[in-house]
């Protein structure tokens, strides 16, 4: 783990008063302390001289702390934060203090409390208090890569069939299959019989995929390790497919493959009842080291609860918000989506005011000058088509409609542009605006922030680094928000914070620290 704090790096450690403040406030976390006493100047200069030439050894470092009226530290503390490779050179001091402050933010959410708790611990105590953060990258990488393969493997359900596990998608099937069965009792036309057989094959396939999903759940329950939970919302067919595509891309990424991670993929799991499903997911959330949360077109209570549950357990959440840079390519992808997707998305984007956003309107107008009228006319033509052909799972007929619909390509482009804008907006909300993108670890009281990424590559990189303690952070004083932020460098997201609102902090820790953490 690397920590950088520019404000501390800029401190002139050769100035006695600056050195005093650096140690007392930035290392020991004191807020109320005695003003610098000039009578100490010659003694501090002696320490500066020693540390500039030979470096301060452990004992000398403690003597300096006592000179500043601060608690001494243990050998284990000194070795962990200030390095065990010989005496501490003066120029290295700011980097070492930034390292301590980074760990303090990660594990305690408070500098003073962290110092008081950690300065007196031996190596075992430090490992216990710093938990997973205390392990080295080399040890973790070696632990992951030397893991045995599981005895039981997941039976892969192809992306195009993952929707067969969907409770709501299956409801659509049952509804439409019942309507078809009812109709062929009255009419036996060749086209209708053909469609009835398509629905029969589909039903048989759903049964097979369900059986696979049930077996897969049993397999997940046997696994010794569970590293990653994927939180997603899957109601519609396209949501299953998008999730399956993302999960496959993420876990086949080079930086992830070598770690031999085990992950819970919801597109591969089925339960017979809602109670079981809720409990299985709760167990997977408890077992996993972190959650990857997919920001999709819509978010649901289930997925948001999984994000909250992960943060409340003090575990990291990586939120993946797709970034759509190539509008033409995305429009091409949308062309293949079911027609109902367009109806729902345009209606939602319109209802949420996205299509009226003054920043988006000029972009949409370039595609179609009167884009609202254009979209509404398309939705009307689709409604008429649906009256004639109400079976949403009959994709062949929908393809014909798309081919015969002159404006359909422009419709795809309009939707791709609007979705791109919407995802950018949601990414910003999650990273910079929403107060609940940081939630408190219920045991320790530490505020735990969501790491927001915009590409599969970044998601893979951050996941790999997160699990091997090799992330880089900057510690930044944020006057605008009245706090100090531990910002993760790939995602540029706040991972931890220390507030300047002292009354709240005092009240907060009074209640949290009673839990005996």
């Amino acid at each position: 783990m690397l920590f950088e704090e520019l404000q501390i790096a800029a401190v002139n450690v050769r100035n006695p008063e600056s050195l005093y403040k650096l140690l007392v406030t930035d290392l020991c976390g004191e807020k109320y302390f005695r003003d610098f006493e000039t009578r100490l100047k010659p003694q501090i200069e002696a320490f500066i001289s020693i540390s500039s030439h030979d470096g301060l050894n452990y004992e000398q470092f403690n003597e300096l702390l006592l000179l500043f009226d601060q608690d001494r530290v243990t050998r284990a503390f000194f070795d962990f934060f200030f390095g065990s490779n010989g005496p501490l050179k003066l120029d290295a001091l700011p980097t070492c203090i930034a390292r301590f402050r980074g760990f303090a933010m990660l594990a305690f959410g408070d500098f003073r409390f962290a110092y008081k708790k950690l300065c007196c611990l031996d190596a075992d105590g430090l490992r216990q208090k710093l938990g997973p953060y205390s392990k080295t990258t080399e040890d973790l990488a070696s632990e992951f890569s030397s893991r045995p393969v599981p005895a039981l493997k997941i039976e892969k359900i192809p992306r195009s069939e993952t929707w067969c596990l969907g409770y709501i998608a299956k409801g659509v099937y049952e509804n439409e299959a019942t309507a078809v069965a009812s109709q062929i009792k009255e009419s036996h036309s060749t086209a209708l019989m053909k469609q009835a057989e398509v629905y029969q094959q589909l039903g048989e396939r759903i049964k097979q995929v369900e059986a696979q999903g049930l077996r897969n759940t049993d397999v997940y329950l046997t696994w010794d390790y569970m590293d990653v939970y994927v939180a997603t919302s899957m109601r519609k067919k396209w949501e299953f497919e998008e999730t399956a595509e993302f999960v496959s891309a993420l876990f086949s990424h080079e930086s992830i493959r070598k770690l031999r991670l085990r992950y819970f993929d919801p597109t591969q799991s089925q339960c017979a009842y809602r109670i079981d499903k809720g409990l299985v997911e709760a167990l997977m959330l408890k077992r996993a080291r972190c959650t990857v949360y997919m920001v999709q077109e819509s978010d649901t209570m289930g997925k948001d609860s999984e994000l909250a549950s992960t943060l409340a357990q003090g575990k990291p959440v990586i939120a993946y918000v797709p970034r759509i840079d190539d509008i033409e390519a995305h429009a091409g992808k949308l062309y293949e989506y079911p027609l109902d997707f367009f109806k729902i998305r345009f209606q939602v984007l319109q209802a949420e005011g996205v299509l009226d956003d003054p920043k988006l309107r000029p972009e949409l107008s370039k595609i179609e000058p009167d884009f609202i009228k254009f979209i509404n006319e398309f939705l009307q033509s689709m409604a008429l088509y649906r009256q004639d052909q109400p079976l949403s799972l009959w994709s062949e007929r929908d393809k014909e409609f798309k081919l015969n619909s002159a404006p359909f390509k422009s419709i795809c482009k309009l939707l791709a542009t609007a979705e791109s804008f919407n995802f950018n907006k949601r990414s910003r909300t999650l990273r910079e605006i929403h107060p609940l993108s940081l939630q408190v670890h219920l045991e320790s009281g530490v505020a735990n922030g969501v790491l927001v990424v915009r590409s599969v590559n970044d998601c893979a990189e951050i996941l790999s680094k997160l699990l091997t303690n090799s992330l880089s952070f900057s510690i930044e004083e944020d006057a605008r928000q009245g706090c100090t932020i531990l910002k993760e460098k790939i995602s540029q997201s706040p991972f931890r914070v220390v507030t300047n609102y002292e009354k709240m902090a005092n009240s907060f820790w009074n209640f949290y620290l009673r839990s005996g953490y």
Partner: protein
Amino acid sequence: MSEFNIKLVPPSDPRLYEQRTPSYLLDVSVLEDLKEAIKTAKAAPKSSEEK
């Protein structure tokens, strides 16, 4: 007028939680009914219009 006079009742609405059985699995009776209807339709003599 629908091409096949098919009406979806209730409408094909995604919010079907309350309309389904407690099970998360496919209601196999739907599939059995469909299979039976296909079998019956195949066995029935075809009218000239249906041919």
